[in-house]
């Protein structure tokens, strides 16, 4: 019997973590940089419009589980999703014509120019970020080594922030020991896996998400367009920086002051005039959009 939905994802995550020991892969070995034949870079944008997000309900967690608690969670999450999807509608309508795909491709071009050691063979574009989809992309890759750059852009659950993230996966077409083709995307067979994120926050966001959504939608979504441009631009420096991290860098960053910025928890790496960089196994840059 196949289980779909959240239950399946949680079950698989629990098993994966237990089975592999979840060794972080966000340090790229220096000797893995140079590859014969170059790398195929696959830009994946698994969305067509800006996404909404919600805070998950935790009744099941709080009460020790059970069917009733799970059903309560499902109802709460359904209500939150409906509300978020209604609130984001004016933002999406005002963003009509905004080409996030083009921005993702351009961002990747600039990023690759900032990291020439990646030895780009060619660049592709797709939307399927499922494991089967990525496995198919590996099969179709013209190069043995593939860098997947999986972008996501959304509004935070409170609509206070625009967020752009890039999930980076360095994978190989041929993996000895992989029993099934999809196993090539298992963490243990990836050369590298890391996420970088840029969060752009409204100045003095309201407690009311509807009010925040109105601000993002105003003037043909002027602030949202600007925030997305800023956040994607941040990817061009965050990604090479993440790829360059060493064990010593991580040791230093892990000692930083614990902070909560833009709804994200992490160790403060640096604080500049425009924003702050946090480390929590991933790299997140948080800033406030200027008026």
């Amino acid at each position, binding site marked *: 019997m196949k289980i779909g939905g*959240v239950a399946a*994802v949680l079950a698989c995550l629990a098993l*994966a973590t237990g089975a592999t020991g979840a060794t972080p892969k966000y340090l790229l070995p220096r000797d893995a940089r140079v590859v014969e034949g170059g790398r195929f870079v696959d830009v994946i944008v698994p969305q067509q419009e800006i996404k909404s997000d919600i805070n998950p309900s935790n009744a099941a967690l709080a009460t020790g589980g059970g069917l009733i608690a799970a059903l309560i969670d499902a109802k709460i999450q359904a209500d939150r999703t409906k509300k978020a999807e209604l609130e984001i509608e004016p933002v999406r309508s005002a963003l009509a014509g905004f080409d996030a795909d083009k921005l993702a491709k351009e961002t990747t071009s600039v990023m690759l120019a900032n990291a020439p050691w990646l030895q780009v063979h060619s660049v592709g574009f797709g939307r399927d970020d499922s494991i089967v989809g990525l496995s198919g992309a590996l099969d179709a890759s013209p190069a043995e080594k593939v860098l997947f750059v999986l972008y996501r852009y959304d509004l935070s659950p409170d609509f206070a922030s625009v967020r752009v993230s890039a999930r980076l996966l360095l994978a190989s077409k041929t993996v000895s020991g992989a029993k099934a083709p999809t196993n090539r995307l298992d963490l243990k067979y990836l050369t590298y896996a890391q996420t970088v994120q840029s969060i752009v926050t409204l100045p003095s966001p309201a407690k009311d998400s509807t009010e925040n959504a109105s601000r993002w939608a105003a003037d043909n979504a002027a602030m949202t367009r600007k925030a997305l441009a800023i956040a994607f631009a941040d990817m061009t420096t965050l990604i090479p920086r993440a790829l360059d991290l060493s064990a010593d860098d991580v040791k230093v960053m892990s000692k930083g002051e614990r902070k909560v910025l833009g709804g994200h928890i992490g160790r403060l790496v640096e604080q500049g005039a425009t924003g702050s960089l946090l480390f929590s196994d991933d790299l997140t840059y948080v800033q406030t959009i200027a008026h």
Partner: protein
Amino acid sequence: MLLAACVPAQPMTASAAFVEPLADRAPAQDATACGLRIVEVGDARLAPETLGVVSGRAIKAPPDRDAWLRSVAMGLGSRGYSVRFAAPAGDSREVQVSITLKSLWVYDLTSNKVANVVISVAAQQPGHPGLSRDYRGDITRVNWSSSDDELQKLTNAAFGLALDKVGQDLRALCPDQGG
């Protein structure tokens, strides 16, 4: 059972036949015999082969996307129109309509599945200024099992909501409505 759940979900291919789930069907309208001449259906999406990913399961577009979009356009027939596909004609009393799929994405958000569709409609009828606008269909449901049936119905329901709005606006262009 848990191990079975971790097998990567195989993609589904959406059906090329647009069928409105009964629970979402718009209330029956009085048949006005307003004729729609669909002169063009198109798909403006980049990477159009993927319609979405729900709980790790990809939804693929039907192989014949033209047939699929024509089927969706025929959905206006259950909204009080007589629909046919034909080349543009200058002297037609029918409302001439072009329909383009601008975006469609089906995805999951915690325990829910969401479908958002945007179709662009341009319509003209002699003596009327014409119509050109985008129509949205947005729908959210609890995701029970990411089954073919669930995902197909959700996608169709999103199209249905957009078609409801298209149907309402096209009414003004019908010859018997003063258009």
